[in-house]
């Protein structure tokens, strides 16, 4: 899966799960603020990531993720 496919997939399932417009899922935006995530939402974030990318991010993984760019890098790293 290349970067464009990762972005396209991410936009699709995040907008669907967290009911936000794909327009606000921009590389430089803050992931937590954009998706308005609380502690429970991270449980659901793990579920949809596993469903769509086939891996389960850990709490440590999320520590490295601030922006969507960070998230895309995490996905690339996990799928490599």
């Amino acid at each position, binding site marked *: 899966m290349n970067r464009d496919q990762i972005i396209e997939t991410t936009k699709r399932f995040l907008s669907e*799960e*967290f009911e936000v417009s794909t327009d606000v899922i921009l590389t430089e935006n803050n992931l937590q603020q954009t998706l308005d995530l*609380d502690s429970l*939402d991270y*449980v659901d974030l*793990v*579920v949809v990531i596993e469903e769509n990318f086939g891996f*389960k991010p850990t709490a440590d993984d999320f520590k490295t993720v601030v922006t969507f760019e960070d998230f895309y890098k995490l996905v690339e790293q996990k799928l490599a």
Partner: protein
Amino acid sequence: MEKRVVITGIGLYSCIGENKVEVLDSLRVGRSGIIYDTPRKEFGYRSCLTGMVKEPDLKPFLSRRERIGMHQPAMYAYMSTREALEQAKLDVDFLDKNETGIIFGNDSTAGAVIETIDKVRERKDTTLIGSGDIFQNMNCTVNMNLSTIYKLKGINLTLSAACASGSHAIGMGYLLIKQGLQERVICGGAQEINKYAMGSFDGLGAFSIRQDEPAKASRPFDKDRDGLVPSGGAATVIIESLESALRRGAPILGEIVGYGFSSNGDHISNPNFDGQYRSLNMAIKQANIDPKVVDYVNAHATSTTIGDSMEAQAIYGVFGSDVAVSSTKSMTGHECWMAGASEIAYSLLMMENDFIAPNINFENPDEDSKKINIVSEMKEQKIDCFLSNSFGFGGTNSSLIIKKYNK
């Protein structure tokens, strides 16, 4: 000093109507909400009859986080509560600032639990269940969801008492307000409708198998009744102190004047004359009224052979032959955990509109039902005072008496 307790809002999400206007029409014309639910056949049900309500689309009203912890009981209860709050002139802003409680009757979350367990069986990983399921799975699901959505600050508990849950919920709220411990309480009952919820009940052989005539299957008190029909949805009854209602300029739909209760202390499923009789008499005594004052009895009668007979005997024992009696379960089926609340709401609609809803399908009486005055056709009649019975497995009994409000 004890407070007077009045009802200021009701809401219904029922198989005979998804709001009060639709329900009122059904009650007047005697419309049945019973259907034959084909998927139950393949699942292994002995009887596929059920009352049916659809799962409401809550997306226009609630955020994802507010919806994610909801399965059928909470979804239905949100719809009925939304309608009741509107009638009672209560909104989130008021509820956030003025202590209000919630006591809801609910006694199962079978559909939600089984769906969750199926996920774990398939994925073999509990961390892939998601965050909403726990709040769907717990029996207090209605309370957790509604108290969060409406920012409720008072008593917050779920009442499980089998098919008397909704009635006891109102009774307990009544006692708290009467004692001055709460100003207002959102009471009600919710009942899931899915094939997982009623399988074990069906297995007892307690359901009607008149499957070729769904609308005629629920026939409380009729000689040819052959069992109950399960049903569900939700009903909300908002109760508050008279002072609070007057201060807020809320509509006063009725006044709760008596709450009787008892336990049979006998068989786990068979009804018992003595327990019902004690519950009825306790309500009458607490209301401090002559039984003759009661114009209408909304019977628990579910269309089972023994249950209806016991109740007919108890009603005859307390009221004699004159009081008008009907079981709205003839139209709705048995709404179980919801029934005690919905039947208060149905009866309030009758009281407000001066009629008695028919006990449809009552064609021939039996030895016990012939002794009481069962209304089988819609009857125009003023109701100033009614009693509603609810009885449940384990021998839990509840009787509520409501009067028209008089200054």
